[in-house]
């Protein structure tokens, strides 16, 4: 896969999209409520992944980690950009969350039923922090401020949440 991407084969582009568009769009659409804007950002993300692929090194980590960072940064850049702020002045964060949760219900992935159970086992305070940092692009410092808990606590909960996830997958 990585090799095919490096060689810029069309089949690699297809595979890349089919494997990761959902996961990446999940992150992007949690940051950007407007579906069409979120889709634009997803497109930008794939273009960027495609064009800067030579910058990815397998030694530094997994491909998805690299891609999700690109997607998250692009999405955050977008919502911080001026024109986006202007056209979305009235969107509230709460609406955004509700909107996403509604949208999520329409996604059905049988192979993930087990995971759903696990996610439910995440303690709410762990899940909130993980979602803020992973899906909303908060830094752990911002998350600590938002939730009014000490920085150390945020780090611990984050770590515990991820350990929960790992227990299931590894």
């Amino acid at each position: 896969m990585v090799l095919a991407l490096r060689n810029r084969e069309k089949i690699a582009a297809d595979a890349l999209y089919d494997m990761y568009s959902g996961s990446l769009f999940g992150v992007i659409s949690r940051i950007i409520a407007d579906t069409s804007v979120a889709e634009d950002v997803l497109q930008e993300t794939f273009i960027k992944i495609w064009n800067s692929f030579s910058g990815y090194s397998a030694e530094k980590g997994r491909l998805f980690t690299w891609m999700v960072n690109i997607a998250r940064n692009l999405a955050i850049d977008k919502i911080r950009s001026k024109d986006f702020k202007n056209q979305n002045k009235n969107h509230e964060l709460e609406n955004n969350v509700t909107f996403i949760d509604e949208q999520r219900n329409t996604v059905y992935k049988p192979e993930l039923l087990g995971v759903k159970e696990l996610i439910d086992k995440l303690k709410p305070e762990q899940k909130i922090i993980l979602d803020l940092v992973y899906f909303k692009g908060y830094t752990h410092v911002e998350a600590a401020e938002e939730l009014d808990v000490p920085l150390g606590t945020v780090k611990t909960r984050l770590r515990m949440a991820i350990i929960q996830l790992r227990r299931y997958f590894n």
Partner: protein
Amino acid sequence: MEDVKAYIETGILELYVLGDISPEEKTQVEEMASKYPEIRTEIAAIEKGLEAYALDNAVEPGEQLRDKVLNSLLTSFADDNKFPTREFLENDFDDEADEPANVVALNAKSNNFYKYAFAACLAALIASLAALYSLNERLNDSYGQIASLQSRNQTFANRVNYMQGEINIFHDTSYKMIHLQGTPKSPAAKMTVAWNPAKKKVMVDMQDMKLAANDDAHQYQLWAIVDGKPVDLGVFDAKADSTGMIEMNNVGNAAAFAVTLEKRGGVPSPTMSQMVAMASI
């Protein structure tokens, strides 16, 4: 080993994977990872956990987006063949995730913008120069026309002034029109002298003059007969195309006017044999 475990438990590896870490810390984590396999394993486990979590939270984008995205990749694929990006993207992952790629993209855009802006400026400049040149040509033409109109206007004004003067003379009843007739020596000779005895002014009408053209060595000389003696009134040339009136010397009291052909510059007393025209008052 204890150190490594403690390091892992600080939670910094999670932040590293989440991209929520300063460049210095990032370098530090990468150094540690290259030294201790346990840390590498830990990072990989964190990544897998998060990846699975993302997959669980996946949201499928619209169906139509797939073609759109893949087409745009193929388009950029074509572009990339022309402009290899490898060189400046080589170090992307060393720095903060995708920051450098981001910077490159912006630079490319603004470079393009300046390229187009420069081209537009150049085109505008060339167009302006062409317009300036053609305007300048037309301005010069206009200047030429104005100059020629002015000179014609001047000629006209002179002529009008002049004719006004002539008309005044003809209308002025104090002027007497003296018609000189040819002598037997030159019967065809004929000329008119306007004379104002009160103002003592004498004018010769060059237009209404029929005298043989004089050569360079000779000139006609006008005389007035005052108390039986000839008085010099000045010399003039007769040419076929002479126009207007010329003013001669003053005389207030004349019994007759006569014209003789003399050597150029005139003579003190007339050569009677050379008299061509005369008239008595």
